[in-house]
């Protein structure tokens, strides 16, 4: 199957879902359409592998791409609003020390729940890196952010997760 056919199938399968995802961030139909369009432009520019159009893996991928396009548009339109900006983070680590993990079911549940409830801009880079196994460069290109921003977001996501584990007593 060539890429044009794949793009068309992705479009027919996910355009409404992608619009909903973008609309949930932008709250504006026209801008949400722009985000869907920007997402497909990203797919046009980047190489990617789709095994099954309807799989959860593909669905998550499409959601992540459009969500980040929507966030980029939101940040451009609302320059003063810090809602989706990278510096909007309360987590601080006053005494960074070595990671000490105790693995048990609770640890696994905490990390799963934290990832699900985490700000999507952090969760998205974690999923692209750890599930899709994408390089920083690829994530940067796909989400239209710099490689440095990718590295900072992954670092922060790890800090948030480590902090939650700490609160849960799985780290000493």
């Amino acid at each position: 199957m060539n890429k044009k056919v794949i793009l068309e199938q992705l479009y027919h399968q996910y355009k409404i879902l992608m619009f909903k995802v973008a609309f949930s961030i932008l709250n504006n139909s026209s801008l949400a359409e722009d985000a869907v369009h920007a997402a497909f432009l990203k797919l046009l520019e980047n190489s990617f592998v789709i095994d099954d159009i309807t799989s959860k893996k593909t669905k998550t991928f499409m959601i992540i791409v459009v969500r980040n396009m929507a966030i980029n548009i939101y940040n451009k339109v609302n320059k003063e609003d810090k809602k989706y900006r990278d510096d909007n983070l309360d987590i601080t680590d006053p005494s960074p020390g070595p990671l000490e993990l105790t693995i048990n079911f609770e640890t696994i549940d905490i990390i799963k729940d934290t990832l699900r409830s985490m700000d999507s801009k952090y969760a998205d880079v974690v999923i692209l890196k750890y599930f899709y196994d994408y390089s920083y460069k690829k994530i940067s290109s796909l989400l239209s952010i710099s490689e440095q921003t990718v590295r900072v977001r992954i670092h922060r996501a790890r800090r948030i997760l480590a902090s939650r584990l700490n609160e849960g007593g799985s780290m000493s």
Partner: protein
Amino acid sequence: MKKQELNERVFDELLKYASADYVENIDSQWPSGEEPDSEHTFSQEFNKKMELIFAEQKKRERMIKIKQSLVKAAVIVLLVLTASLFTVMTVDALRVKILNYFIEKREKSTTYFMNSESPVVILNAQDIALPTYLPNGYSMVSDGVIDDYYIAIYKDDAENEFILEVLAEDSIVGIDSEHVNVEHIKINNQPAEYYLKDKIGIISYIHNERIYVLSAPLDKDELIKIAESIK
């Protein structure tokens, strides 16, 4: 393997597991099934723009096919040339002349790069040199090692932050210097690069066989002062 390194690896595995769980449960966040019933009708402008994307992809695929045909033609030409060269090289007088030409050409223009196998540098947070000078009000809020790089985030009271990244010298690092003028400067007499992008000053240079990248919404002199305090 050190205990800290082992912990980081276990943490990486946990993240992989949690990421897989996130994907597996994507339907709970964004349910499938009701998409065709959506009330939204996409605008004509949007539909046109999407058609352009598909047309562009079609054009690209056509170009790839043309390129593939050209490569095939080039292979045929190459085979013909190889056969001709074989004929020429079997004649002594011509062979000497042609070989001399290539030797002369090579002496004039070839540069040799000796590629020695360098050991893989594993970064350890304790071994990283950190700035001894920080602008007024700044302190480190977070740091850590991920893969082959170290990252530290500093913030002041007004939540302005600067980021220090340290990477092994053989790391592949992408620095976004598109559409900016790169200025060549010196940090402790070592060559460095400075550029300003989106009001963020960035300095990158090599120090103790590591790549240091400092980025902050600070002026150039202040940034240089921080970099020079890393020893």
